[in-house]
């Protein structure tokens, strides 16, 4: 019995006056017409609890007699089936309609109230029953009812939200015109003649959607109006795919049914065009439609039946249908990993859209300790991760970027800016600060609202993933790189009213380099489009990146709005440290100055500066535990930290090496001096080594041991060696300067 219902996997959606607006297949195996929103559940976010109602047309045909009367056009039935999902995505709700409960013996009110639907009975898939009102969530005259099925644009890669909206509105207007007729002709399921053309349409459309190229879609979109409704239908098909993968035997059947339904819709619309034609639909097609199922193989025989009953051309459409079915499989299998990710979902009886795994780290069982003393407090403040209230020493750059982005947002046009600077000069931090300020301003309604998207060349596996990430952050849809590029291209080149400006931050731009440079080209080309309203802020390390790696057409699109962040001077570094410490007295003045001078002389990297300060606080903590001092980080501590970070580890490594290893290094230098080259074979060095052993009064070592010594020095990269298969002939080079080696060896 339940087979019947799976055949009827569709949902009819009603507009305000209870008029069917579009035909739809939702993602579940139950069928329903009205979705009644009982209460929007705040805890669950987007999910809304619903009750399902069914229209008379959805009751299986051979059961309709059970009602014993003709249904009122605005009558619906409470649908009771455990397989229905009690929750739906709140975003699929598009509007509200009033549903009124009437006692079983009451008569229907006049049809003047267009916005109200009535229900007396409930349909439990087998029979009609009287509704016991007190058991329901909604009492009589409940006004809080809404009708679901907004086109969820995020599910499938649909061209554009606006396009979809247009399509929807077109469908609505078309169908509302035919609404009066519909109530009377609910029963019709598809005329034999119309069915053929409909199935052709359907198969063509399906093949189109399998390709899922926006081009095809667009063409369909522009083709004709009733195709648009089909298109909508198609987007919803995707939602049921996880379900399809579970119950594959049903698929052809339900598809067949859907074909009917679509054909009926198209039929209706066609009818509307030639208004003379009316009410010709026979029940025979309906009969065939509800033939009890005969397993999967039955679908073929059914097709044959219908082929006999109808024209010869049916065979073609059957083929097409099959083609479509075969096209579908890869799609559903592509979805499979998503459902595999949450196996408990598919096993549970309640079908639900597969919730994707949410990324997250388990939370700690004990809360993190707060910094206890001044030094710990200072350390927390000095950590690079702690976001300062303001960015000192970058006021000019901040102002420049701010005014650039602000002018673009206000003007509603696009543009590019290239920001360069060595690592650790606050490029990304400044841009983030600018965005924070702009977002604040737009919250205060001083600026039009805008979207901020950030991508990082280092945080993707392949330059083309940039498209995927941008698309995902922009519209929350997932697509392959090529598809995402096409969608973005469309999005940025199509005019759309009320589009807000998008600010795109591209960090580590140089990693988006590809051979054809098409990623970079697109990123800088989109802002030049008239309707794009895209501002691109590109960050990289080298100042001359556009000249060095970009081909002309890319560099030209990037434009000349450039900014370079100079390395911090020692005064700026000092200011950064003091502003971060912000009245926490943990450092002596001189100590801060020493650190900043040292770092400024080397790289001007603020990260390095903060790390050294942090290490100095640790050293201070150490030493104060041994001997109580002032408790402040002084020169000595900073010196020690600097030593640790900047001292060459080669020298300490050589000093701690074994005697033979040190001797070998001496031999290497002696051999280099003899040859006058910076390279020698092991055999040559070994001769020297043996001589040195004799001089030092050590027992000479064998060749095997000598090689082992040499290899040990090679693994720590004090020596650079050729591969060891060369044996005696492997060439040896020093990775340290000779002076350093001699210096390290002189001490002892």
């Amino acid at each position, binding site marked *: 019995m339940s087979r019947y219902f799976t055949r009827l996997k569709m949902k009819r959606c009603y507009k305000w006056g209870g008029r069917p607006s579009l035909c739809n297949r939702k993602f579940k195996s139950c069928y329903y017409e009205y979705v009644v929103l009982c209460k929007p559940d705040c805890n669950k976010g987007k999910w809304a609890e619903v009750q399902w109602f069914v229209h008379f047309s959805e009751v299986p045909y051979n059961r309709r007699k059970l009602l014993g009367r003709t249904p009122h056009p605005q009558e619906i039935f409470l649908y009771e089936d455990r397989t229905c999902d009690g929750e739906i995505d709140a975003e699929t709700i598009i509007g509200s309609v009033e549903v009124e409960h009437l006692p079983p013996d009451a008569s229907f009110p006049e049809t003047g109230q267009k916005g109200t639907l009535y229900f007396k009975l409930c349909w439990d898939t087998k029979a009609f029953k009287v509704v016991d009102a007190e058991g329901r969530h909604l009492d009589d005259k409940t006004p809080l009812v809404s009708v679901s099925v907004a086109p969820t644009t995020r599910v499938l890669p649909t061209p554009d939200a606006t396009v979809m909206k247009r399509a929807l509105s077109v469908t609505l207007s078309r169908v509302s015109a035919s609404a009066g007729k519909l109530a009377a002709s609910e029963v019709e399921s598809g005329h034999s003649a119309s069915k053929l053309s409909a199935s052709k349409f359907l198969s063509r459309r399906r093949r189109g959607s399998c390709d899922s190229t926006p081009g095809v879609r667009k063409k369909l979109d522009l083709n004709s109006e009733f195709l648009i409704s089909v298109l909508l239908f198609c987007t919803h098909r995707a939602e049921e795919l996880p379900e399809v993968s579970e119950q594959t035997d049903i698929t052809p059947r339900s598809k067949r049914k859907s074909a009917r339904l679509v054909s009926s819709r198209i039929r209706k619309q066609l009818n509307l065009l030639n208004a003379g034609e009316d009410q010709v639909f026979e029940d025979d097609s309906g009969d065939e439609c509800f033939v009890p199922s005969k397993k999967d193989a039955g679908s073929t025989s059914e097709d044959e039946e219908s082929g006999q009953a109808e024209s010869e051309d049916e065979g073609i459409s059957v083929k097409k249908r099959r083609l479509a079915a075969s096209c579908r499989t890869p799609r559903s299998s592509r979805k499979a990993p998503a459902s595999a990710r949450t196996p408990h979902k598919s096993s549970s009886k309640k079908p639900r859209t597969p919730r994707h795994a949410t990324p997250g780290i388990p939370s700690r069982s004990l809360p993190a300790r707060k910094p206890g003393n001044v030094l710990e407090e200072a350390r927390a403040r000095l950590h690079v991760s702690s976001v300062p209230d303001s960015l000192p020493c970058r006021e000019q750059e901040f102002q420049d970027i701010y005014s650039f982005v602000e002018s673009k947002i206000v003007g509603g046009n696009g543009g590019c800016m290239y920001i360069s600077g060595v690592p650790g000069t606050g490029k990304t931090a400044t841009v983030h600060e600018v965005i924070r300020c702009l977002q604040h301003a737009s919250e205060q309604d001083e600026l039009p609202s805008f979207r901020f998207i950030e991508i990082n060349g280092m945080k993707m596996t392949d330059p083309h993933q940039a498209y995927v990430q941008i698309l995902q952050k922009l519209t929350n849809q997932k697509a392959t790189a090529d598809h995402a590029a096409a969608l973005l291209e469309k999005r940025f080149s199509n005019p759309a009213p009320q589009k807000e400006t998008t600010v795109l931050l591209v960090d580590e731009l140089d990693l988006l380099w590809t051979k054809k440079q098409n990623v970079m080209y697109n990123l800088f080309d989109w802002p030049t489009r008239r309707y794009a309203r895209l501002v691109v802020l590109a960050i990289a390390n080298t100042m001359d990146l556009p000249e060095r790696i970009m081909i002309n057409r890319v560099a030209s699109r990037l434009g000349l709005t450039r900014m370079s962040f100079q390395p911090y001077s020692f005064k700026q570094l000092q200011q950064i440290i003091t502003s971060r410490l912000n009245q926490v007295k943990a450092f002596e003045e001189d100590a801060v100055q020493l650190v900043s001078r040292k770092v400024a002389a080397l790289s001007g990297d603020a990260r390095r500066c903060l790390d050294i300060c942090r290490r100095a606080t640790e050293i201070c903590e150490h030493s104060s535990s041994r001997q109580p001092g002032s408790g402040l980080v002084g020169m000595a501590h900073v010196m020690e930290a600097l030593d640790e970070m900047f001292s060459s580890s080669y020298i300490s490594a050589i000093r701690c090496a074994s005697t033979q290893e040190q001797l070998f290094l001496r031999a290497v230098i002696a051999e280099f001096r003899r040859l006058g080259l910076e390279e020698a074979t092991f055999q040559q060095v070994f001769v020297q080594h043996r001589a040195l052993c004799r001089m030092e009064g050590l027992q000479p070592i064998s060749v095997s041991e000598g090689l082992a010594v040499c290899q040990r020095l090679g693994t720590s990269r004090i020596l650079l060696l050729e591969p060891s298969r060369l044996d005696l002939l492997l060439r040896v080079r020093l*990775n340290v300067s000779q002076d350093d080696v001699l210096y390290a060896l002189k001490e002892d």
Partner: protein
Amino acid sequence: MSKRKVKDQQLTVGQCVCQVHRILRERFCFQKLPSAPVGLESQHKHLLELLKRTAIHGESNSVLIVGPRGAGKTMLLKSVLNELLDVKEVKSNILLVQLNGLLQTDDRIALKEITRQLNLENVVGDKVFGSFAENLAFLLEALKKGDRSSSRPVLFTLDEFDLFTHHKNQTLLYNLFDISQSAQTPVAVVGLTCRVDVLELLEKRVKSRFSHRQIQALSPMDFPQYVELVQQQLSLPQEFPDGRFAHEWNNSVKALCEDKSVEDVLRKHFNLSKDFRSLHMLLFLALSCVTPSNPTIKPSLLLEASRLCTMDCKANMLHGLSILELCLIIAMKHLNDHYQDEPFNFEMVYNEFKKFLQRKSHSVHSFEKPVVIKAFEHLQQLELIRPVDGSASRTQKEYQLMKLLLDHTQVMEALQRYPQCPTDVNWSD
């Protein structure tokens, strides 16, 4: 093994020796952690405090442990982790991810392994599905969602850190270090490497994000400490079942370490390397000769073990050669002496060999040329000679340029030790 449970004060010698083997083998072969890190106390303290701060305060850190092979880097990290996980506050909070550059040879594998070890929500059973890009995005998203105070700190240990720097774009390292420098999930990244120049391998952006903390696992150990360590490694613990035997054993070990010849052996090893592993090898070889009939380590055992350890493998190979092959080697050595290590080919060697036969061929038969070629090829297979790089393989076998992979001294030594070497073969002068 079950003997251990018997709390008998008087075990037989055989049982005692069995116990000794078990205890010492655990130390030498299974890398059992010592009770305290020897010679690395300050490093131990530094690392422990660093990781504690991550676990307790949620402070992100990154650190590299650098030291030559066998210096005790892994031992240091393991003992710190052991100690860290003993603290209850830490144990329930920290997540541990252990990676090895030899196993996770690229970022794709490494990401899957991280996700698996963190047991994120996209892990099904023991597998991680999805593409590389998806996995990366998922992991980054997961780590980004956390914050300092509420999410569990994640401790990444990257063994063979230098191999991770060869991954494409150093994506993994960039992201790990970037997380450690931003207000996301607190992480501690501990890298272990034996390369001193590891910082030069990091890309400039990655380098800037690294905190530049390096812990040098170098111990300036001198010889008395080394001997003490040997004694410590060989001594039996207090809780050895048979107290009397343990006492005797420990005394004998003490006497062993004071022996003059043993001291020479140990000094030679100390001079070669301060590496623990080679020391363990030496002690293990000595230990394996301890039997119930010979229940102590005698100096002679240690000498024998040392001889085995320091044997020259090439010279040993020469002992197995035939007279003809040995003659060819000697001929090559002569050529090397005459032409200052210039490469030679078969014809040159053959001529030299024929000259020798003409001069004094009393015991050596004159061989056919094909036989000599065969012997020459055998030497090449043994890699006692090898073709010079770049000498075209097109040239005829007889004229292919070769080099001898034996040192002058190795040949001389081998000739002296060759069993029943005919005196007239010894024309190496």
